[in-house]
């Protein structure tokens, strides 16, 4: 007989059993009998029965705790249409956080086979449906893209975007998400001022000026002809595609009118160039939508060059990409593979510009020094270079992993990291234990065993600092961070009008004995998340609010051992790394999702799931190497194709 949750004991047993019988009348044996008696594989019907028996009390027949009802998963089609729901079920079973502790647990072997079944059958269902492209890109350049693009377009070291409003992240958490790239009423004025300032700067820089005005009037070239040639060169690079005569006419006219008013040749030309820099064709990435409704088309070669370049370089396509696009030679696998490799390996800071955005927003470490300030009263010796090093460390580690095609799992655990003089000081490392002569430049350092805890994302002070309060670390923020950013768990919001929890481990442990159960019954809304969050955070207690190692705090000796919801004991940061390694595929799926969202500059849609599964497969097949992730994204359907979609199309 089922053991009912006390809070649902009043539900009439009769009604529920009747429902079960109607829906699953064909199944004679119960799932546990079937699985055990025959050793047979899990099937959809058996899985449904597991759900009804183990989850139905709280999640069916009108009871839809947490907004989840198993009726949504009743048909096989739901493996595709309710993919995320199924995956959430898998996640909770895998963690053993469902069924809740006051309900009858699933037997271990059944739980394990159910978890595997959900994993494979949802993946297979998605793969079977096949690839689906997404909408054509339409968005303005993000502020950082604008700055980088003007820098590369005019060849100047001048931050032209500084007067633009800050962009706020949306979608998968990046500032380039089309949905949140707002257009404020003041923006035309801001773009105009930025264009004036940038052209002014360029006209005073000898190299930049020569590049900008390379055609000058002479016996064989009229003034207008020279102006047109210069304007064409700028427009084709600014608009990231070839430009027609007709499109140029407007800009040439601006030049001619200015010249007619006796403006000197150069000034008149620079004036017309302002027009190019405030044109929506420069400020917006606007792909041509497919002509037929619901048709899928490859993106054009020039559009592909733009996608590739803003993804990996956070800036406009370079000469080589432009040339390949002009010749129509970019959109094939061999060439793309070559270009991806080139963009990743190229000298210069372009890859770092992009990873600064990707990593900084993914982990939230971009906030260090701006939205997240280090308390200077408490840490008077933390100067701007120290904070900058904390912010930069995860970026250069990711950059290095990409350049060397290292395993992505080195983000979890490794025997190296990047350090500089400031970080060695912040982390209080003994300099005789690590090799190297440290200056301000971050360099790759092999870590001795005793400092291995400094490797991977968890060893980075910046990661710990952004998940701390001003003067103390926070197990809850850190636990939620790892669940969300590394394991892809979507935690529901704390219910309204509920006070914050006491974060001390003592309080949590006191509660584990008897109080915890009662607290759970009194407010299961808390336990359902904090059973997952808190143990992870406690494993990181050796890191203080700057991410420095500590063996003691005011409360005495630090105890970083913790018990996960599945009963697994985790000991400190190394134990947590091992735990994450045991879930490496989940980690890579999160990373694939985040990076695909960044590469596409939009929220992912349900239809992108195929691409994610394929990317994960590619990474796994390539020993988790980082470039497999990038190539998987670049070769994916939504990256190389576009489809007309309505606002409600999946």
């Amino acid at each position, binding site marked *: 007989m089922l053991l009912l949750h006390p809070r649902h004991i009043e539900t009439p047993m009769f009604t529920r059993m009747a429902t079960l019988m109607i829906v699953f009348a064909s199944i004679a044996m119960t799932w546990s009998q079937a699985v055990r008696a025959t050793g047979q594989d899990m099937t959809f019907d058996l899985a449904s029965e597991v759900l009804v028996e183990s989850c139905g009390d709280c999640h069916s027949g009108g009871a839809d705790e947490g907004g989840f009802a198993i009726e949504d998963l009743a048909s096989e089609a739901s493996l595709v249409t309710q993919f995320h729901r199924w995956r959430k079920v898998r996640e909770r079973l895998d963690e053993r956080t469902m069924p809740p502790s006051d309900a009858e647990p699933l037997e271990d072997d059944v739980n394990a086979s159910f978890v595997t079944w959900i994993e494979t059958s949802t993946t297979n269902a998605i793969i079977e449906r096949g690839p689906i492209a997404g909408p054509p890109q*339409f*968005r*303005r350049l993000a502020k950082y893209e604008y700055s980088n693009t003007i820098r590369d377009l005019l060849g100047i070291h001048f931050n032209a975007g500084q007067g633009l*409003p*800050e962009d*706020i*992240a*949306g*979608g*998968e958490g990046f500032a380039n*998400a089309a*949905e*949140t790239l*707002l*257009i404020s*009423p*003041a*923006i*035309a*004025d801001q773009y*105009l*001022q930025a264009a004036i300032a940038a052209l002014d700067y360029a006209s005073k820089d000898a190299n930049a000026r020569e590049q900008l005005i390379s055609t000058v009037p002479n016996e064989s070239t009229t003034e207008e002809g020279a102006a047109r040639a210069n304007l064409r060169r700028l427009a084709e690079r600014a608009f990231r595609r070839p430009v027609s005569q007709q499109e140029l006419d*407007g*800009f040439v006219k*601006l030049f001619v*009118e200015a010249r007619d008013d006796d403006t000197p040749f150069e000034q008149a030309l620079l*004036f017309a160039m*302002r*027009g190019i820099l*405030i*044109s*929506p*064709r420069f*400020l*917006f990435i*606007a792909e*041509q*939508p497919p002509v037929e409704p619901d048709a899928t088309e490859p993106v054009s070669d020039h559009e592909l060059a733009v996608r590739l370049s803003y993804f990996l370089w956070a800036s406009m396509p370079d000469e080589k990409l432009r040339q390949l696009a002009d010749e129509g030679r970019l959109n094939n696998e061999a060439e793309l593979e070559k270009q991806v490799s080139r963009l990743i390996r190229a000298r210069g800071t372009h890859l770092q510009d992009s990873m600064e955005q990707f990593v900084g*927003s*993914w982990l*939230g470490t*971009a*906030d260090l020094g*701006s*939205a*997240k300030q280090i308390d200077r*009263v*408490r840490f008077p010796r933390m100067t701007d270079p120290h904070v900058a090093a904390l912010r930069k460390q995860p970026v250069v580690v990711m950059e290095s992993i990409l350049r060397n095609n290292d395993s992505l799992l080195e983000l979890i655990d490794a025997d190296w990291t990047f350090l500089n003089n400031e970080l060695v000081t912040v982390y209080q490392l003994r300099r005789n234990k690590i090799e190297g002569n440290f200056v301000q430049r971050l360099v790759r350092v092999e870590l001795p065993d005793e400092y291995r805890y400094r490797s991977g994302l968890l060893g980075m002070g910046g990661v710990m600092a952004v998940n701390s309060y001003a003067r103390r670390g926070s197990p809850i923020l850190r636990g*939620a961070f790892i669940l*969300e950013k590394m394991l892809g768990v*979507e*935690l529901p*919001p*704390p219910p*309204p*009008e509920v*006070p*914050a929890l006491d974060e001390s481990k003592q309080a949590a442990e006191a509660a584990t004995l008897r109080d915890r159960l009662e607290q759970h019954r009194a407010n299961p809304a808390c336990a359902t998340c904090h059973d997952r969050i808190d143990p992870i955070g406690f494993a990181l207690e050796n890191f203080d609010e700057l991410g420095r190692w500590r063996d003691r705090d005011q409360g005495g000796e630090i105890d970083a051992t913790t018990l996960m919801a599945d009963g697994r004991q985790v000991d400190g940061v190394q134990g947590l790394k091992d735990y994450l390694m045991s879930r490496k595929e989940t980690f890579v799926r999160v990373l694939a999702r985040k990076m695909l969202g960044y590469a596409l500059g939009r*929220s992912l849609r349900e239809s992108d799931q195929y691409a994610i599964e394929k990317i994960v497969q590619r990474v796994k097949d390539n020993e988790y190497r980082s470039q497999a992730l990038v190539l998987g994204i670049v070769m994916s359907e939504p990256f190389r194709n576009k489809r007309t979609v309505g*606002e409600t199309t999946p």
Partner: protein
Amino acid sequence: MTWKPINRRTVLRGAGVALALPWLEAMAGRSAAADSESPPVRTAAMFFPNGVRPDCWTPEQVGGEWDVPRQLAPLGDHKNDVSVLTGLWHQACDTGDGHYVKDAAWLTGTTITKTTGVNLNSGGVSMDQVAAKAVGNATPLPSLELGIEPVRSGVDGVVGYTRVYGAHISWRTPTQPLSKEINPRLVFDRMTRIATTGSRERSNRPLLDLVNEDAKRLRDQLGRSDQRRMDQYLDSVRSLEQRLAQAESPSSTSWKSKVDFSTREAPEEHPREHARRVKLMLDMMALAFESDVTRVITFMFGNSVSTVNFSFLDGVDDSHHETSHHQNKEEKLDQYEKISTWHVAQLTYLLAKLKSIREGDSNVLDNSCILFGSALRDGNRHSPHNLPLLLAGAGGGKLKTGQHIKLTNDSPMANLLLTMLQAADVPQTSFADSTGPIDSLFA
């Protein structure tokens, strides 16, 4: 009574709005008589996140005589320039998460759409933008949006809302929040540029005409939601074009800055200290009202769930949001109280500054109507009831200040927003879920 009589001038302005006259024509429509009329009413809303210590904000007595509660103590001599409002809330915000739902809708009184970006929607236009639509065409900038705190990166995965919501209180349309400027220097430069446009330099208007044509062509290729974005860019280009046209026209009815910006000192670029940044931004608010660059301003002391560290205050050692979760522990409540008291002190600084700027027989504060408050009361409980709200300034003589007005519990805050609109001569009879203006506020 739900409607204040409006004068002829207001009706004219209202008609201008209805016909969506461009700025230039609206200006030409201002008669010489208008110049001799009383100075314009300025409208501002000043938001701080995370609520207040609930037990020492509300005065005990009601009416014109009340003892100043501890958190309002910095008002000092300016006690009589403000009214305390008790019992207001937004019913539409009694849902969703602890912060974003309330903060984004503070000036709209609506329920926002939960999203990480797609389908961003506040559910309504904010009070300041209703005012800006009505009175904004009399000034170069219809409104100004200011703030202090940069937005944290990423989306707030824990609550599933984009941080756009936590960083915007001004909504021009339900889908167009207005970005705020957080660098006081850029605000100063912008105002200076506006006040001195029309010099010998070659006009940029032909550039804008070309962009306009270009954008229209591009627009035709786009899907509907993308067209909306392109329209917003077109709007932005057009309003700049109109402003330049006005500034470059030699007409005597042209707007002129009431401040000679060359005599004013530009604020420093990037002060690190929070308190310094707030002070400089409040100076910019005062300068904007004084010069008449705009008559509508919103200002955010911090974003939702602000993590600004207030340890610069004696006896405080944590961030605003963290402190607001005080768990009823006295030492945390004490810090929480100090932070809200500091915010009231900043308001007082602005009030003193505005009062010192003479305007005919009165001063800018008397001609202003400034809302100051938060979108939740007790941060520990994220309580949306009985919001902590002050209204400062006499609204050009229309409002009676210095009162503690206690309304029936859970009265619509929209009534207060409606009152502000009417004080600013906006011909509006309802706003969000309003039931009518708050009569006792009127003089």
